[in-house]
């Protein structure tokens, strides 16, 4: 199959019926593998990895904190892509997928923030610090809230899809801007930020510092979270498609009956 034909085949899933049928077929696979990966990763991480020499047992929080934080960002990226697809090609499934993904993003951001706070308490001596990364996640959380609230507020599904898509595009630009602004702002506030960052074992810092002992279970957890995200998005998109169809059928019934 040529690339163009493959691309065409991909667009076929924009048909709601085709999407429902296919997602129904592949969903069990994603549910089971995600559950397996998360279970294996967490159990491996929780029971069979040593304590970090500096952080003690709190290093075990990494198996939840990092995957959740990754998915919180990737979820927004996915919403950005599906919003663009909706605006350009007007596929309803795409808009509904963005809608279905947003609450998952909220939960992932909440997990990242909460585990971060619980982790920060013994490590930094505070639940919350206005560290650039923490602040950016808080802002991302606000963006998610606004996005979901806008979906909920608008009655007409097509208008809602259009408006939230534009909000997602504009919001992405401002989210990136905020990220840089926050970096600048904290460095401007106190020079000690670099000390804090070294203590904050998150994201990219981790892979350099943490040995393979921690890395493999973390990788499995990340894979598990990605699979769980895919499963949830597919399932919830199916729900949104049905909800929309119910709405349309009821409207037809009222007119006809």
């Amino acid at each position, binding site marked *: 199959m040529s690339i163009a034909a493959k691309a065409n085949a991909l667009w076929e899933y924009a048909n709601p019926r085709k999407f429902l049928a296919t997602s129904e077929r592949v969903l069990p696979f994603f549910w089971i593998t995600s559950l397996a990966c998360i279970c294996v990763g967490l159990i491996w991480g929780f*029971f069979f990895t040593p304590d970090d020499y500096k952080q003690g047992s709190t290093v075990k*929080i990494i198996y939840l904190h990092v995957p959740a934080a990754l998915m919180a960002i990737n979820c927004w990226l996915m919403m950005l892509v599906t919003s663009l697809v909706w605006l350009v090609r007007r596929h309803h499934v795409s808009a509904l997928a963005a809608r279905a993904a947003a609450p998952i993003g909220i939960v992932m951001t909440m997990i990242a923030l909460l585990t971060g706070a619980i*982790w920060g308490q*013994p490590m930094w001596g505070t639940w919350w610090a206005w560290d650039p990364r923490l602040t950016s996640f808080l802002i991302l959380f606000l963006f998610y809230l606004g996005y979901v609230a806008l979906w909920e507020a608008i009655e007409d599904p097509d208008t809602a899809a259009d408006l939230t898509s534009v909000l997602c595009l504009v919001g992405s630009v401002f989210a990136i801007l905020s990220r840089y602004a926050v970096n600048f702002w904290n460095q401007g506030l106190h020079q000690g930020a670099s000390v804090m960052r070294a203590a904050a074992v998150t994201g990219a810092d981790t892979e350099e510092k943490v040995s393979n002992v921690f890395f493999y279970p973390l990788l499995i957890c990340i894979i598990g979270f990605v699979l769980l995200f895919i499963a949830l998005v597919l399932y*919830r998109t199916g729900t949104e498609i*049905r909800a929309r169809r119910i709405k349309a059928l*009821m409207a037809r019934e009222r007119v006809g009956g």
Partner: protein
Amino acid sequence: MIPDLGKYADSVLSSYAVSVGLLVVLVAYSVIRGRKMRRDMEKIEQRMSRNG
């Protein structure tokens, strides 16, 4: 079997509890809403096919 978590046991356990709890709530909510929508749609489609 439970490993010795030392003085940070509260932190580790509570963060696992919070995260797993949130994930379970998310999945449960999604599944409950999904089942409801599926039921409603079948009901309406049956009604429509009977009437129309």
